[in-house]
């Protein structure tokens, strides 16, 4: 047990030195906050994602799907006549905009229930009856009605593929307090067909086959027309949900990286807070405090600090998490799936994780200092030289351990084939291993710099030499501080290089990919399986305009293949766009020829990586005329989708899916043509047609980068958080170190050193430590980015990224290191220069 007197004497110390406690608390809280925030953002976004996916598939176990344009509605009648005992419901759905939000319009047949999610069944208002007979009537979830202030009977304006139309809200759906049903409009299938322009067509038939009855499934498969597929929604949903798993793993790992920095931070501050009181603790030992008492006192102290820090951290994390949710959801939305729901999920699990991380990390971090404080004999604990000589002995061992960890990291990296977790394990080992080597390197630098200064220095530089060699002299303190700083800065560098490389790669890719001069696009997509087509008569008028050398039609659709439902860019393969697709493998010209002739398709790099496909392999499509196999003639770079994409010639698509429409038109102009006047001419043709945009290539490229920036905003924020953690880490590490040295400086002051010289010494020493950290962080940061780019990124997304190390990233990191360290010297120097030498000595 700890005696009250002992406790009091120690707490009194904290009141005298609020900075120490403050820095410790900040260190803990930031580490915890980042982890909690990312956790909340991840969980919430995933929840929203799951609900959105479920809202689309409902409780259906299977789906019958047709081509990207859906299937003839009469198939539904045929089906229920053939399989009357199977719960089957037709679905006509799409996306519309309401007050700027993307809303899922669900057209259902109220006589067949399987499409409805559990939350919705049995809760229909009686007014639902009117859905059937009154055109353009919808039901709206209670939460959404509340949120948007929409009452029953209200007319609301929705935008469908860019044109606005009014529908009448005649009732509510869902439970009054069920927030899960949001972003949804429920209509009768007739209204849905009419609004979405899908008359005569249904998107799919949802089935509920309670037990996985193989006989029934086989019977359905046999009965199905060749152009249709029977898909298990469970498997479909799972693969949809799995799409984001790599993305989420990355975010979690990034937050762990932040925590790792936080751990160093906590360890560092705790060490200093203990060691700074070496004298006090030693005296207490002399006065009869037992080892156990000292040990538990230090741990209790760490515990209180960690509780306060964790508490603040959790609150901070929740606040931060709310902001991050939007960013993560935004990324999922633009990369993976249209989210119609936003949720904010806080589970007790997140809190427990955050609290454990904060408390346990702090306790572990203070365990060594506590042990050190308690283990030494009373009289010896007061002498730092003893600790330093011990540290000197330990240094080679620590360095060796560090080198060993780096070695293991490299081995894991090369042995693990595509495991993402192994990639991260390797990354973490590298960081920790490198951090362990840092004290030794720092010591060497300090020593040799001292020797160098000896040779060239004048007499006045003795003090500065002291400052420099002091780093090596108290390596037990400076080593930890520098290691913590290296980790912090390297994370900033590593993430910075990764983002910059990625962005540069995408920029170059966009440059290559978008060679047309003018693009005419449809704006809003209604269907989730095919882009909204451009009106045929407009296209006809545009393509004959003077000054146009070639036109490329494009439409993105989703087709069923033997690798699942995949995104396919259907293009008119004019010669001008051949070079737009940069091939990773495959011979450019013959590959293009076979694509053009409809013999083969291109697949994107992530698709090839995911399914281990190469040129010469084949993909089988379910077409309107049964299964058709296409060879792969090229694998092209693409950064627009991590699920992978396919390029297919339009003649093939039109022939096998009976769809002759295009959704965007790329125009390649003659050299002599006047772009502005052509744009004016197109605008005149398009005139009032809603939902069509005309853009030039510059804007599109800009849009690509905007999208990139939006998508990776979350990564930027993480980088920013890492910078803050690094900054505070450096600040606290160095400040604690210098505060500890105040006594030493007191002696120097007594020996006649001026405050000005003190400022100089302290500044030089911390600045040097900052600089050493900054410089050592550069190689670690670069190695980290190499692992992030070459391993983590490829294993997560399958994207090749050209490494580009921007000078700015490194300058930024160095600047952070140096500014933070100089700033760290301000308070101790100021304090020292204000204190009279006598007073400083008295403290001793």
């Amino acid at each position, binding site marked *: 047990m700890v005696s009250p007197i002992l406790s009091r004497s120690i707490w009194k110390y904290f009141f005298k030195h609020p900075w120490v406690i403050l820095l410790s608390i900040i260190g803990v809280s930031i580490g915890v906050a980042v982890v909690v925030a990312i956790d909340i953002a991840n969980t919430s976004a995933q929840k929203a994602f799951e609900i959105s996916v479920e809202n689309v598939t409902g409780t259906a176990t299977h789906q019958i799907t047709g081509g990207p344009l859906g299937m003839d509605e009469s198939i539904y009648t045929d089906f229920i006549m053939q399989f009357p005992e199977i719960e089957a419901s037709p679905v006509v759905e799409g996306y519309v905009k309401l007050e700027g939000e993307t809303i899922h319009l669900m057209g259902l047949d109220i*006589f067949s229930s399987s499409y409805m999610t559990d939350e919705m069944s049995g809760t229909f208002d009686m007014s639902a009856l009117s859905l059937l007979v009154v055109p353009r009537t919808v039901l709206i979830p209670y939460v959404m009605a509340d949120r948007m202030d929409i009452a029953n009977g209200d007319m609301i304006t929705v935008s469908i593929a860019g044109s606005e139309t009014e529908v009448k809200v005649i009732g509510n759906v869902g439970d009054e307090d069920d927030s899960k049903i949001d972003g949804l409009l429920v209509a009768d299938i007739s209204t849905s067909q009419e609004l979405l322009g899908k008359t005569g067509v249904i998107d799919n038939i949802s089935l509920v086959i309670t037990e996985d009855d193989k006989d029934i499934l086989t019977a359905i498969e046999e009965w199905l027309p060749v152009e249709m597929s029977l898909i298990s929604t469970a498997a479909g949903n799972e693969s949809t949900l799995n799409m984001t798993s790599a993305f989420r793993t990355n975010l979690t790992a990034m937050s762990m990286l932040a925590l790792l920095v936080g751990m160093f931070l906590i360890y560092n501050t705790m060490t200093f807070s203990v060691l700074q009181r070496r004298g006090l603790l030693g005296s207490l030992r002399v006065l009869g405090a037992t080892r156990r008492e000292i040990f538990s006192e230090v741990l209790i102290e760490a515990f209180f600090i960690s509780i306060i820090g964790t508490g603040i951290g959790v609150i901070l994390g929740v606040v931060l998490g709310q902001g991050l949710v939007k960013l993560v959801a935004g990324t999922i939305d633009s990369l993976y799936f249209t989210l119609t729901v936003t949720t904010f999920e806080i589970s007790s699990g997140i809190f427990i994780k955050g609290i454990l991380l904060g408390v346990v990390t702090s306790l572990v971090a203070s365990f060594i200092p506590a042990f050190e404080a308690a283990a030494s004999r009373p009289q010896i604990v007061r002498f730092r030289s003893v600790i330093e000589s011990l540290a000197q002995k330990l240094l080679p061992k620590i360095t060796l351990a560090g080198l060993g960890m780096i070695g293991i990291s490299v081995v894991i990296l090369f042995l693990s084939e595509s495991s993402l977790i192994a990639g991260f394990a390797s990354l973490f080992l590298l960081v920790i291993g490198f951090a362990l080597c840092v004290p030794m390197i720092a010591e060497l630098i300090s020593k040799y710099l001292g020797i160098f200064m000896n040779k060239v220095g004048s007499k006045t530089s003795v003090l500065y030499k002291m400052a420099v060699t002091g780093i090596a002299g108290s390596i037990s303190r400076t080593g930890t501080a520098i290691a913590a700083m290296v980790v912090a800065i390297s994370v900033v560098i590593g993430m910075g290089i990764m983002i910059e490389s990625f962005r540069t790669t995408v920029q170059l890719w966009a440059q290559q990919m978008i060679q047309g001069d003018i693009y005419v696009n449809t704006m809003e997509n209604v269907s989730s399986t095919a882009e909204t087509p451009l009106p045929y008569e407009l296209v006809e008028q545009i393509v004959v305009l003077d000054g146009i050398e070639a036109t490329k039609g494009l439409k993105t659709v989703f087709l069923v293949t033997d690798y699942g439902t995949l995104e396919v860019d259907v293009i008119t393969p004019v010669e001008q766009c051949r070079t737009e697709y940069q091939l990773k493998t495959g011979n450019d010209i013959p590959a293009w020829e076979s694509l053009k002739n409809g013999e083969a398709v291109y697949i994107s790099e992530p698709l090839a990586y995911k399914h281990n496909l190469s040129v010469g392999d084949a993909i089988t499509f379910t077409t309107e005329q049964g299964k058709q196999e296409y060879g792969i003639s090229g694998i092209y770079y693409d950064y627009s989708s991590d699920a992978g994409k396919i390029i297919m010639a339009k003649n093939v698509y039109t022939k096998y899916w009976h769809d002759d429409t295009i959704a965007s038109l790329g125009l390649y102009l003659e050299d002599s043509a006047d772009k502005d006047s052509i744009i004016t001419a197109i605008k005149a043709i398009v005139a009032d047609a809603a939902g069509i945009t005309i853009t030039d290539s510059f804007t599109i490229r800009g849009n690509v980068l905007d999208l990139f920036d939006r998508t990776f905003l979350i990564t930027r924020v993480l980088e920013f958080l890492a910078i803050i953690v690094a900054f505070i880490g450096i600040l606290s590490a160095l400040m604690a170190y210098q505060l500890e040295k105040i006594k030493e400086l007191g002696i120097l002051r007594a020996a006649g050193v001026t405050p000005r010289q003190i400022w100089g010494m302290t500044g030089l020493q911390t600045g040097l430590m900052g600089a050493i950290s900054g410089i050592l962080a550069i190689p670690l940061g670069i190695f980290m980015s190499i692992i992030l780019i070459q391993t983590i990124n490829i294993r997560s997304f399958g994207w090749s990224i050209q490494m580009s190390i921007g000078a700015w990233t490194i300058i930024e990191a160095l600047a952070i290191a140096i500014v933070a360290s100089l700033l760290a010297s301000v308070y101790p120097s100021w304090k020292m220069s204000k204190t009279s030498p006598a007073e400083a000595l008295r403290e001793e």
Partner: protein
Amino acid sequence: MAISMRVRLLYSLAVLILIAFSSFLPGCNCENGDTGGTKINIIEALSSSDTEGYSIADKVIDFTFPKDHGPHESFRNEWWYFTGNLYDSEGNRFGYQLTFFRIALSPLTTDRTSAWGTNQIYMAHFTLSDIENEKFYCFEKFNRDALGLAGFSENPFKMNVGDWYMLGTGDGDFPWQLYASKNGVSLSLDVTPLKDIVFEGDDGLSYKSVDKSSASYYYSITKLATNGYIEIDGVRHEVSGNSWLDREWSTSTLNEEQGGWDWFSMQLNDNTEIVYFQLRYKDGSVYPYNEGLIVNDDSSTIKLGTGDIVLTVLDTWKSSTGVTYPVKWKAEVVSLAKTLIVEGAFNAQELDLSTRYWEGAVNIYDAQDTDEIIGTGYLEMTGYE
């Protein structure tokens, strides 16, 4: 009679579908007591007296067949009501009910580009009573009159709700085929009239209330020779026997005082049939308006009115749903000076579907000699709670 009550039944059902349709759609096997979901009070749920825009049954018309066998969409409600008693080769008796209901959700047809847009919906009820084993099976289906999911076609003469159908020869000639199947219980029958079409009320204009303020068009074929098979749990029984067809369409509804009805259809062994109904007030007492017919051997009819048959409850049965039904009746047919006993072939013939009522096969005895069954028929009782 059953007529306007059935109108209400239909309406409340239509509403019900939408209140809790998902739990009812699969239908229930009454034998297993597999019900679920909430029930509504038929009478209370019905309140719409807004008949504007619909055709009204307010004058005597000339019926033409087969045209009038088909739907009359400008009226709000209509049904094709088959019931019957059948026997297999071993003498086992089965009762069945197959009813197609048509409901107009609005008087107007809107011009829609979507084929799914319609103002007509259909519902069907299918029950089978295994009398030897005292097992009762009942199911229901709904669908809209669109894309062949439900509805009527003139040629071939066919009405369906999903895969359940009634199919005539050519444009409506008999025999008609009846088919329904669900969860291993099936019915496939050919029905051919043994009697002419008979018209209720004033030449088929059948009133529902004392002041004759509401009416329906109502005709019946009281005896149809029936052959075919039924299937229970995969066991097939070739069956034959007699069926009864009730056809009715209207727009007007019951008045607000009425709380339920008891409807009797009796096929006597002497080749006469009797149909009679009794309306009840909400408090359960008898409403003073009755209608009925006696159909003679030669299809000639005797009209029955209020008080022509005196009904007395002899016994009741309480269902597991908690509702008590009078399952045994004494019917004094005044004009024939005959007293009949009408008793459920077995008690548990309650349809616990989206709306709850009792409709089942009955045995008919002479009150003087209750040992011998002198006829069979169907009894429908609604509005009991």
